[in-house]
């Protein structure tokens, strides 16, 4: 793990990159990283995030600044701006059931080709996917999902990069921290090694590439 500035971290992301962002309706989202993405105008992004949050909050800021070209998400109903951009064909949106979304990312981070899920069998979601029967039950083959970058927000990070999360701001963060080539983390509190007890580390340090210095 390397501790770097916000500016240096976002400068590494090329326009058009695939980026996973943790958070659920903007809760547990690395806001400072997103502010810097907007400041550096990194456009054409392929965004992977549970939802589109709301304008002005979380990944909602990326839609405000029209930086997203493609979105993989489970729900965008609370962001009218993202909906408008979808209906105007300015962004391509792939809507995925939430349990499938997180399992595809988990698979991507765990070296699996995908998962078999009953969710979506017999619905629009099944279109173009392989249906596989196991013990007489139908499942959909859902393929793994990875990104070039994961932007993760933690409650605690120690000097090595071990992470712990707070309450419902954990959500997709630890799963995404497994599934990207480069993992960039902001933390509410950066603490000495040992403050997070081994049993309470959720994301082990070797998964974290860059920790943003608190300034």
């Amino acid at each position, binding site marked *: 793990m390397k501790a770097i500035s916000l500016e240096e971290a976002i400068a590494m992301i090329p326009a058009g990159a695939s980026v996973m962002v943790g958070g659920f309706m903007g809760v547990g989202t690395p806001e400072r990283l997103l502010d810097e993405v907007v400041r550096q105008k990194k456009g054409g992004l392929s965004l992977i995030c549970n939802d589109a949050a709301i304008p002005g909050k979380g990944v909602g800021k990326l839609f405000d600044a029209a930086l997203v070209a493609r979105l993989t998400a489970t729900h965008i*109903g609370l962001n009218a701006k993202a909906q408008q951009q979808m209906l105007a064909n300015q962004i391509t949106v792939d809507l995925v*059931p939430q349990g499938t979304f997180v*399992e595809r990312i988990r698979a991507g981070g765990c070296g699996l080709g995908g998962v078999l899920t*009953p*969710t979506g069998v017999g619905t629009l979601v099944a279109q173009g996917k392989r249906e596989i029967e196991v013990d007489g039950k139908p499942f959909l083959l859902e393929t793994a999902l990875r990104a070039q970058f994961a932007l993760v927000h933690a409650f605690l990070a120690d000097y090595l990069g071990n992470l712990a999360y707070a309450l419902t*701001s954990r959500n997709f963060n630890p799963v995404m921290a497994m599934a990207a080539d480069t993992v960039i983390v902001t933390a509410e509190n950066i603490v000495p090694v040992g403050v997070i007890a081994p049993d309470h580390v959720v994301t082990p340090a070797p998964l974290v590439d860059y920790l943003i210095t608190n300034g």
Partner: protein
Amino acid sequence: MDPQIIIARRVAKELRSGDLVNLGIGIPTLVANYVPADLKVFFQSENGLIGTGPIPEQGLAHPTLTDAGGRPISALPGASTFDSAMSFGLIRGGHVDVTVLGGLQVDAHGHLANWMIPGKMVPGMGGAMDLVSGAKRVIVAMQHAAKGKSKIVAKCSLPLTSARPVNLVVTDLAVIGFADGRATLLETAPGVTIGEVMAATEADLLVGDHVPEMMI
């Protein structure tokens, strides 16, 4: 009584002590208000919490303790938090005893459509498809009709949420079950006759010998 409150009160009667319950947005959220205090029900919020408590007082909300809509909530003693993979493992894995969801249409065989209106409303399915696929019991809490049109239809015209039928539908007019794969009128709302329910329902309903009034 307000139609939504009739629905919420009746659905609350379906919950048992020890149940792990997931409530959807809208009318389902109201159900928590009508659970008797002596019933120990665990409410799950799919963004990663079991043990959701009431909305905190003004000024006591914490930005990292929210429901699936991003609104502040509280956590009860004994609550637990987890990531989204765990949360949906609970849902898909059959660990959730009851889910209560809103609906746009339910058909004569119990199929639910509640996630999109093509060309008009495409918000995304969120957790709905996983909940209907995986929860042990699926209860739909919705108004019987919208703009004068029955929401209990012969066949769903809107895209289905799951191929799996739901277990129970509770509306402001009736309770409808699907035990034999056919919509069956189980109860009528207070002051509503069987004839009125039939007239307000597009789907053919089986009617048992004894159709009691809802106990709310």
